[in-house]
Each structure stands twice: as structure tokens, then as C-alpha cells.
């Protein structure tokens, strides 16, 4: 028995060192839980990139990619940790696309991925806490940190001369993180946050919350929440009582539901959400539609990029060993080199095999900054005649 184990271990090592192999890739996303509606398209996005690489036959001398998925539940850190543990120890994946939500990602990264030395690239965890986490260079993300978004929001508002705002945020890690980072950035630029108060989702009545916000005052109200949850209730009550007429809507507040519910009454309000434009995005949209999923679903493009980056880094390192390819991720993501759009992964693999350099652009214009996170681009929109008009990208 011992000999057999030794032999198989040696075989595994040999396979890792040279020749074609079966590279197992893990996907750990919240297929059940509060963001389950987003997990499907994200999973398909990641698998799209893996399939593209596998079908090209150019990865590590003709290696194939096998996908193993797991449910991270988004909300339950223990369940996410167990899932990642299974992916790494039982399935033997060489890298993981995930986790989905910030809390769950921190737990599985610190407890399992770090201990086993496996690379995780999250397409959607945006908490600022992940920026300076002790990760041994194993953690990356293709979504921008909320700290960056706070700065962008502050820039836009001070640019418009709005110098005092009230802030209400949905009472969870995401809401508090973004509200606090916005407050810090805004006050550094000379703005004044009159009040920074939470609201709970799923309540019938937000008049007390709005009364508090109205008493504090401000030129505008920033609603850091969800359009199909408390965010809509707060906006409705603020409009009804005449407390505010100009709003700032980040992330989950932006969408067609916002236009339908409040389009006519919130003229001049500002929407800010992570979104990219350009050839890479257009190409990804085409590919996603051909593959039968909605490309506009949040973070689907980021998931494609996360999977692509990991596989390209393996090619650049010439090995699927996380310890070897983790240092190559920033290299393939950033200039110099040949710009790579979605659908061009085969070409990228060829360039890398020939010793060339690439600058992966992907669906979300990936540019790695700081501790391995995407700088991200944000779309600024303004409510005009009942619809959100795009002002620009920054």
C-alpha cells in the first residue's frame, strides 16, 4: 500500500513537471444563498474561459482543463470553508475561482487556501479588508475594492460641487464598508457627511430612518443598498416626505428597476457602478450570448477574467503548480505585451509558449494594482427624463 501511494505521488509529481496533464480548476461560488441569482452566470463565465483554453489544446503542451464546482453559500463561512477544503484536498484542484462574498472568501482563504498554498481569484469579493490581508501572494481579485469605489464616488460628487450628503447603507459588511470608505474619501476632499446611518433590509416602513436622515440634512442622499430591498423603501420614503430630491445610487441600486420605480422623480440623481466598456466587453457579450447566458449579469465578465488569468499565468510559468504561477498573474494581467481580449486565449497561450509577453485586457479591462486587485472602471450615469444616461467611465 505504501509503495503504491509513493508511486502515485511520484507519478503526480512527474505529470506536474512535464507533458500533458489534466489540470483541475475549482469554482467556489454562492449557488445557494442571498446572491444565488448572480452565481449561475458567473459560473458560466468562468467555465467559458476554461473551455476555451482546454479546447485550444495549447495549454502546457496540450493539457486539458477539468472543472470542479462547489457551493460557497455566500453567507455561511463554515460551509464555504468546507467546500474549498473539499476542492483542494479531495479533488486536488490547482486553483480556485472564488469565493463570491467577502466574509466567506476571507474565511476560506485564511483557513484552507493559504495552508495548502492554492491560488484563489475572486471575481466579486469587494471588501476593502481583502486588500491588505496576509495572503502569501495567493489571493487576487478581478473586481475593484470598495475603497476604490468610495474614492470614485467622492471624486464625482466634489466635481459636481455637491459638498454635503447624508449616507444610508444596508446593514451588512458590504454596506458599511462602502459607506465608510466613501465617507473617508469624501471628507478628505473637503466634503461633509452629515449622517452615516444603517437601514435594515426587508422592512415595510422606512419613515423613521428617513426622518433621521432628513433631520441631519444635506444636498443629496447616498443610498448604499439594494433596489429590490430596503434601498427602494428608503428612496420612496425620502421622496414622499420631501426630505431629499437628489440621490447618489451606487452598485446594486443602479438598474432598470430604479428607472421604473423612481425615474420620473429623481432627475439629476447620480448612478455609479463598476462596469467597463470597449472591445473586450463587446467581445465577451457576444461570446456569452452565443453560450446562452446573460453577459450583463454582474461579475460574469469578472469571473471569465479570473479563470483566464489563472490559466494564462500557468502557461507563463510553464507549470500548474500554484507556488510557481502565483507570481505570474500580475505579469500577464499588466503591460507590457500584446493586449488580449476575450476569445483570444489561444493566441495568448501561443505567445506565452514562445516566451513572449501579454497584457490581458479581458472583459473587465483588468489592470492589477496594489495587492493583486483590479483597479476597475466605474460607470457614471445621470437620471434624465426617467432614464439613466451614461455620463462617462472612470
Amino acid at each position, binding site marked *: 500500500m505504501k509503495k503504491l501511494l509513493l508511486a502515485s505521488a511520484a507519478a503526480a509529481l512527474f505529470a506536474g513537471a512535464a507533458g500533458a496533464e489534466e489540470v483541475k480548476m475549482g469554482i467556489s461560488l454562492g449557488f445557494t444563498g442571498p446572491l444565488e441569482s448572480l452565481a449561475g452566470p458567473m459560473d458560466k463565465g468562468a467555465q467559458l474561459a476554461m473551455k476555451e483554453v482546454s479546447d485550444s489544446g495549447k495549454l502546457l503542451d496540450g493539457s486539458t482543463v477539468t472543472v470542479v464546482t462547489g457551493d460557497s453559500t455566500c453567507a455561511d463561512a463554515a460551509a464555504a470553508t468546507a467546500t474549498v477544503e473539499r476542492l483542494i484536498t479531495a479533488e486536488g484542484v490547482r486553483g480556485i475561482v472564488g469565493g463570491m462574498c467577502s466574509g466567506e472568501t476571507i474565511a476560506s482563504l485564511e483557513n484552507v487556501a493559504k495552508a495548502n498554498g492554492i491560488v484563489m481569484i475572486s471575481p466579486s469579493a469587494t471588501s476593502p479588508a481583502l486588500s491588505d490581508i496576509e495572503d502569501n501572494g495567493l489571493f487576487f481579485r478581478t473586481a475593484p475594492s470598495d475603497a476604490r469605489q468610495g474614492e470614485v464616488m467622492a471624486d464625482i460628487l466634489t466635481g459636481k460641487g455637491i459638498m454635503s450628503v447624508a449616507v444610508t447603507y444596508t*446593514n451588512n459588511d458590504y454596506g458599511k464598508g462602502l459607506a465608510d470608505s466613501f465617507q473617508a474619501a469624501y471628507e478628505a476632499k473637503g466634503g461633509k457627511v452629515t*449622517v452615516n*446611518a*444603517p*437601514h*435594515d433590509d*426587508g*422592512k*415595510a*416602513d422606512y*419613515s*423613521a*430612518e*428617513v*426622518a*433621521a436622515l*432628513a*433631520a*441631519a*440634512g444635506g444636498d443629496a442622499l447616498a443610498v448604499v443598498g439594494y433596489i*429590490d430591498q430596503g434601498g427602494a*423603501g428608503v428612496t420612496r420614503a425620502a421622496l*414622499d*416626505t*420631501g426630505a431629499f430630491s437628489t440621490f447618489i445610487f451606487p452598485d446594486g441600486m443602479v438598474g432598470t428597476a430604479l428607472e421604473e420605480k423612481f425615474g420620473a422623480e429623481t432627475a439629476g440623481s447620480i448612478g455609479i457602478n463598476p462596469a467597463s466598456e470597449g472591445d473586450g466587453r463587446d467581445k465577451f457579450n457576444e461570446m456569452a450570448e452565443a453560450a446562452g447566458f446573460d453577459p450583463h449579469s454582474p461579475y460574469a465578465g469578472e469571473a471569465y477574467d479570473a479563470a483566464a488569468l489563472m490559466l494564462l499565468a500557468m502557461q507563463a510559468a510553464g507549470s500548474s503548480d500554484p507556488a510557481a504561477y502565483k507570481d505570474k498573474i500580475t505579469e500577464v494581467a499588466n503591460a507590457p505585451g500584446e493586449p488580449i481580449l476575450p476569445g483570444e486565449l489561444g493566441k495568448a497561450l501561443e505567445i506565452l509558449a514562445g516566451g513572449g509577453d501579454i497584457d490581458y485586457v479581458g472583459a473587465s479591462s483588468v489592470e492589477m494594482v496594489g495587492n493583486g486587485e483590479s483597479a476597475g472602471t466605474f460607470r457614471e450615469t445621470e437620471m434624465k427624463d426617467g432614464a439613466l444616461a451614461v455620463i462617462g467611465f472612470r
Partner: protein
Amino acid sequence: MDILNAIVAILNFVVIPAAAYGAQLALGALGVTLIYGILRFSNFAHGDTMAFGTAITILVTWALQAAGIGLGPLPTALLALPVGIAATAVLVLLTDRAVYRFYRVQKAAPIILVMASVGVMFVMNGLTRLVIGVNEQQFADGARFVIDVRSFREMTGLAEGLALKTTQLLTVVIAALVVWALFWFLNRTKSGKAMRAYSDNEDLALLSGIDPEKVVRLTWIIAASLATIAGVLYGLDKAFRPFNYFQILLPIFAAAIVGGLGNPLGAIAGGFLVAFSEVAITYPWLKIAGYLAPGWQPEGLLQLLGTEYKFAVSFVILIVVLLFRPTGLFRGKSV
């Protein structure tokens, strides 16, 4: 001018929302207190009875809206209300026949009936979700405002605005009508007197030839009507989501107990007391202070309690009253 602004601000952010909320709580608490007074147990299923009645009303409202039938500036839901009441009455009568009567005949201790009502609560909970789903439903139509902020500002020239929603006005008016009708029924009609007699002394009422089953049926029908009306008004004014009606159970019980369980007048007073405390304690008085004492710039918002602790206010009132006046402010039955 400043004093006027302060008054308008208080009206807009405290008095009007609290009055509408208080009327909704009072109607809910009336139902709870009636059942406690006559059937002698705390009905935990009351919140979900409200949800069920509202769900049926919403379905009928949608049908009416689809058929193009409406009430002009008033919400169509008012037309659908009688159907909702009838359906809810049938449901609670069936529940009584299937569950509560068994324990009543056995003269079971009240706590057993309370536990049975918790079971009923979960069943109704599921039933409502089966009928209409778990999501938020919008069914308000007609004119949204009696007075809206912009026209009030233009009319008066004040800096503060005042909004009065149709649903808020409607809530208070309907609650007043319902309360009047209920007291007239309890005090003036033979059936009402029979109910009060049964509530005061069950055995004596039996000896006087009062049919207990008839009294029980009447009580359930009245409780179902009150629950449906309260639920529909709450849903119109705020938003309908089955889970909210489970949450509103706590302030309703707080209102009924504060007023004195079994005492209808107490339920109404309790409803308004809980509502005004919830709103006034979480309201930041900074703006009002600014109008009344110009030049004074306090640091904070002058807010006693953050709005996220709103529900805690009901708990605190409940505990204080139970500690110092266990029978409630209006001398109901002790709990």
C-alpha cells in the same frame, strides 16, 4: 415663522406617520384583545391572519384592476376588502372548528391554546406564502397624496414641506369608523351584550341562556374583520410582504398588553402609545431645536435611539408596564 416650520416638521416626520401607524396597531391590538377577552388566550396567529386577509384582498384587487373597476382617487383595495374579510372569516372559523374547539371543550389551560395558536401561526404563514408568494407586492392605486410637499411649500411659503398620503388619511378615518362601529356593536346590540357577558363570566352567561358557540363564532368573525382591515391598511400605507406581518406581531402585542389585555379602549390607547414612542424616540430633534432655539448648534443629532433599535422600544414599554402595572394602563385582565 420658525415656530411654524418646527410644527410642520414635527407633523411631517412624527405626528402623521405615527398616527397612521398607531391606527394600524390599534386595529390589530383590538383583534388580539377581543380574542383574549372572550376566548381567553393570546392568539399568536393574529399577524398571519392579517397577512392572509391582505393576500386575498390583493388578489381580488388585481382582478378588479384588470377589469378596469376602480374607485377614482381611492384605492381599489377598499372594494376588494369585503371579499378578503369573508375569506379570512371562513378560514378562522374552520381553524376554530379544527383546532381550538377541541381544547375549549376540554377546558384546556390557556397556555395550551396559546401553543396551539403558535402552530396555527406557522400553518397560516405557509398558506399565505402559497397563495401569494414571499415577495413584496404593490397594490395601492388612486391618488398618492392629499397634500404633497411641493404644493404645500408653494401654498404656505414655508421652508419645511408637509406630505399627507391618501393612505395615511384613509387609515385614520377607517380606523375611527371601525372603532365606532365596534363599540356601538358591543354596547348597543344584543349579540354585543352577550359577548361582553360571556367575557365577564362564562358560567353566568351560560346560565342566562347565552349560546357559547354563537358568541365564539361572532368573536372570530369580528377578529377576522379587524385583522383584514388592519392588514390591508398597513399594506396600502407601507408595503405588503408576508414576513412583515410576522414582525408586526410584537408591537401589536405590546399595544394590547400596555392598554390592558381584554380591554378594547386600552388596545386603542396602547396602539397609539407604542407608535408615538417608536417614532418619537428614534426621531432626531436637531432640526426642531434649530428652529426653536436659533444659534444653538449641538454636536449630535439629538436622537435618543438609533432607528435600527426601533423594535426594541416595544420591548421596553412592554417590560416597564408588566413590571409596574401588570394589568395594563386600562385595567384589563392580568396576563
